[in-house]
């Protein structure tokens, strides 16, 4: 892969490279051969650079003139779109002066290929920056992390109230959900991949099908079974069950993929040494797959932390700290954000942003841990 990427784009070699060699051959033998210069393998010549810079400058100027001064247009989005179109035109035109058509097509496509990730990158950066900036007023108060919202009115200042109840709720709900779905998921994956036999195909098909279950439907399922038919109160346990319902097929499938990556040769070596099935799975397969399993687990947790729809239906939203998952409503971070935005009060909106920033930090931390656990090993 790297060899290919490091190669230069095929291009006309720099013009000054050729005349150097020709006189050296025709010259008298007595003259010491000229020092050979290393050929520059970088694909970009100075001319290319000037073309790019020139096209950029010309397009900015033209767009500014026509967009803001001559035509009655306005708006940032329109400016950027028009600028991009004009830039592509200029760039293609300037390239066409010196290069054949395939090179022009290549350059035009290159602008699009660079523009798309840039656009997404800007969007992602603006998501993160906006969340932190808007949440800053609430985040800078330490009570935001140590108090709950009981008795706090929507428009109270940020020195009152916080998200402790939502943090604790998320922690408990996700812990229960993972505690249910992880062992079951891994055991199912072991069954599908290591034991096999009758039924394993059916299990695999059904589990794969259920990964398509939308999270809101998982929530609705638990809502109607546990809350409506069984009469359970809205509680953290119900929310955890909903999250587990959603996560179980995902965990099982991710673990199955990870177990499939374990080389068959290791299993055979283990059997050849006289190990049994259980010993092979426990001492060879699972330890080999451990980084991958940990990554799958942590990414699953990250997903469960941010999932709003199932908890919206099942947990009820408390304003006070409740660490008992079987009784009384329990809040969680996504639910807190949703409820706060729905109130429409500016203070609550900023609290929602602050909670979203905390959630982003949690997800990012989990993600970094997942990377560290994976230890640079490639697990797909």
């Amino acid at each position, binding site marked *: *892969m790297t060899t*290919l*990427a490091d*190669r230069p784009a*095929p291009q006309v070699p720099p013009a000054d490279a050729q005349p150097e060699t020709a006189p050296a051959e025709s010259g008298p033998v007595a003259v010491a051969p000229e020092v050979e210069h290393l050929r520059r393998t970088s694909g970009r010549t100075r001319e290319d650079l000037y073309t790019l810079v020139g096209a950029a400058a010309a397009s900015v100027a033209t767009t500014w003139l026509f967009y803001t001064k001559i035509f009655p247009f306005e*708006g940032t989005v329109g400016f950027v779109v028009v600028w991009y179109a004009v830039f592509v035109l200029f760039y293609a035109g300037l390239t066409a002066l010196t290069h054949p058509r*395939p*090179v022009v*097509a*290549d350059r035009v*496509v*290159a602008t699009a290929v*660079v523009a*798309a*990730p840039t*656009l*997404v990158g800007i*969007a*992602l950066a*603006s*998501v993160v920056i906006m*969340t932190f900036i*808007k949440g800053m007023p609430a985040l800078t108060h330490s009570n935001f992390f140590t108090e709950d919202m009981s008795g706090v009115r929507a428009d109270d200042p940020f020195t009152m109230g916080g998200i402790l109840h939502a943090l604790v709720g998320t922690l408990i709900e996700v812990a229960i959900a993972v505690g249910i779905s992880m062992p*079951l998921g891994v*055991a*199912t994956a*072991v069954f599908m991949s290591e*034991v096999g*036999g009758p*039924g394993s195909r*059916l299990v695999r098909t*059904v*589990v*794969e*099908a259920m990964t*398509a279950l*939308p999270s*809101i*439907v998982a929530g*609705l*399922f638990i809502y109607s079974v546990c809350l*409506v038919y069984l009469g359970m109160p809205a509680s953290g346990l119900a929310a955890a069950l909903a999250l587990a319902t959603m996560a*179980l097929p995902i965990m099982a499938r991710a673990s199955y993929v990870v177990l499939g990556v374990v*080389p*068959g*040769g290791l299993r055979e070596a283990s059997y050849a040494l*006289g*190990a*049994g*099935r*259980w010993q092979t799975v426990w001492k060879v397969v699972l330890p080999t797959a451990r980084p991958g399993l940990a990554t799958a687990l942590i990414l699953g947790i990250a997903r469960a932390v*941010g999932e*709003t*729809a199932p908890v919206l239906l099942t947990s009820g939203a408390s304003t006070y700290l409740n660490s008992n998952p079987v009784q009384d409503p329990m809040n969680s971070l*996504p639910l807190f954000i*949703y409820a706060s*935005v729905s109130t429409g009060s500016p203070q609550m909106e900023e609290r929602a942003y602050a909670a979203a920033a905390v*959630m*982003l930090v949690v997800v990012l931390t989990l*993600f970094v841990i997942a990377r560290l656990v994976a230890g640079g090993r490639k697990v797909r």
Partner: protein
Amino acid sequence: MSGKVHPTPVLDGPAGDPSDGLGVEDSPRQVKARHSLQDQVFIHGSRAIGLVVLVIVSAIGLFLGLQSIPTLQHYGLGFFTEFRWLPSQDIIGISAVVVGTIQVALIALVFAIPLAILTALFITDWAPARLRPSLIRAVDLMAAVPGIVFGLWVLFIIQPHATVVAHWVSKYFGWFPLFHVRTDVDYPIWNQAPGYPSYAGSAFIAAIAVTMMIFPMATSVMREVFGEAPLGEKEAALALGATKWAMVRTVVLPFGRSGMVGGTMLALGRALGETISVVLVISQAFEIKPYVLESGTSTISSLIASSFKEASPSQLSALLTAGFVLFCMTLIVNSLAAVIVSRSRGRDVTDL
């Protein structure tokens, strides 16, 4: 490892007697594994867990399916053709939400797929090799960002700009049914009455949030498939003097076609079920209309999220039916995607 465990094959059937010499026919021996107690516990235990999970997981599907029977008995086929959702008058139908779901998902695909293809190509073929791992990681990280954060972002950052764009498009391209908005388009967008409110909370704006949700998934599927394009053919194209784009067009894109289709289908499956970012953005309206820039739409998941609380048992079963329909839609789309993606990968399975 203990020496007690012998899952070794046990010879059954006629053992060749060496003293017998000639006359004994060789017959294939039967290989049987005699598992130790430990292994028997393990095998049966894991099979039991697998079956329990099978029962749990299929119970969900069965439950949803069974719940839809009373609904269909009560409302008949009108449940699928009625577009209004008026529980108080016992008029309930899901055609509007189904159409809205598909609209939002398709618009999101229109945004996300070109971006995903270009980004995947950038990662595999244009980006410098040392940047590649961090780009891949960034896309993975984006997949982990909760949907509600994208919902907030669209609601407060994107919507003010998006409504301006929608207004402009409807003003100049309103003759095209998709872009029509039933308001006075000559009114400036900042004007309260027919301006901003006619454009905010449309399927188009909800689709932007969904785009952010499905983009990482589509990109990573496509990136994996593009990355598996045969190196030799790529180098051959370059050696023949192709530009990078010519190489990509002739080698990478044909090779990755099934990956592109599969990634698109997977993204569609995700887009159909996306809930919370859509709920935050849209203004709920039960109406079948092609005007995607106009305020007001509804999706199955937003319908469930907004009306489960006041639902009576019969309406709850109607909601469950709607959820079942949604599940069937995503199931079909995902299965197709799985078939397509697996077909693209099946050829090169390497082992130790």
